[in-house]
């Protein structure tokens, strides 16, 4: 029931936005077609600006994912993670999440296959997915698009946010799902 209404809302959100904005524009006598095409011009310029950082990041992430570096890094981090009481099954998730959304999704699928979709590990990883973002990728693309070279505290802030999300996910999931 809840799931159905959630689906319904997300299916209707975009149509509602588009129709609502155009409808309001018409009511305010905006030349909506001209305004749309004028605004849409910006799409091409943005494409040109983001493509270099897009390629740079996706190549690096592709190489990293294929190499098996994730397993090595996971094993190296396990002892540290154990001391702060994080289930070690979700360590790959914590490494992959800031780098790649599709990589993180495939880790959730893998956890579901190995431990079951109702396991604490799988649910914790799913909550992590919802409480953090592909930080490195977002920083690279957003700053790359406007040629910012000195990013100052952006990476530190983004990674702190991810860490807070991960730790919250671990503890909240334990409270919610550990029956």
């Amino acid at each position, binding site marked *: 029931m*809840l799931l159905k209404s*959630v689906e319904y809302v997300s299916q209707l959100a975009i149509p509602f936005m588009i129709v609502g904005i*155009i409808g309001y*524009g018409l009511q305010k006598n*905006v030349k909506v077609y001209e*305004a*749309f095409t004028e*605004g*849409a*011009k*910006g*799409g091409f310029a*943005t494409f040109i600006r*983001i493509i270099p950082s897009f*390629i*740079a990041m*996706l*190549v*690096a*992430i*592709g*190489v*990293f994912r*294929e*190499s*098996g*570096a994730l397993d090595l890094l996971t094993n190296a981090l396990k002892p540290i993670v154990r001391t702060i009481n994080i289930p070690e099954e979700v360590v790959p998730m914590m490494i992959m999440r800031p780098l790649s959304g599709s990589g993180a999704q495939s880790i959730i699928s893998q956890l*579901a*296959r190995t431990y079951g*979709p*109702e396991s604490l590990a799988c*649910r914790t990883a*799913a*909550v992590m*997915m*919802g*409480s*953090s*973002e592909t930080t*490195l990728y*977002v*920083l690279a693309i*957003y700053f790359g*698009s*406007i040629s*910012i*070279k*000195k*990013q*100052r505290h*952006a990476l530190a*802030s*983004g990674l*702190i*946010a*991810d860490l*807070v*999300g991960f730790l*919250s996910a671990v503890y909240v999931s334990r409270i*919610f799902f550990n029956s």
Partner: protein
Amino acid sequence: MLNIIWSVLIISGFLIGAATGNVQNVTAAAINSAKMAVELAIGLMGVMAMWLGILRIAEESGLINIISRALKPIMILLFPEVPEDHPAMGAMIMNISTNILGLGNAATPFGLKAMEELQTLNRYKDTATNSMVTFLAINTSSVTLIPASTIALLTAAGARNPAEIIGPSIIATTMSTLGAIIAAKTLQRLPRYKIKPWERGRKNAA
């Protein structure tokens, strides 16, 4: 920093690939990723153009101003350097609200537009401003209320009640967003993240 992370990802990837006899696959991954990046970016260009068109209508009709005014108290607190009627505010509001609704496809164009607008307020064009960092920190903390794609993933994996992750996700993402804002606002005061005086000097000389 990005220089280091990027090099480490690529160099360690190839070295580990070579050590495990997997190097051909790693090479193939590099080349395929480069191809895929262009395909993805072309797709994004179309979506971007569409949402920028819609955004322009919303701007010209004054709708963005109405929403901005409603959210003014929060936005001024978060982005004190941005004038309240600046187009950057509208783009950031659209980005954050589409993110909250889980409309990632629409959020990215608004986010890129917001960065462009924030850059017009930037005195030192190669250096991130406090507003940019705060905006990106909020963005990378994920503000999505309903993690729809993850729920779909769990459903596909056979979970009986995948919607049960919604509650915990909302709590965790609220924590991470608060963490992001506190981190960005605290770190911006640290000497190592200050906009460096010599950069200012060079800018004035130029």
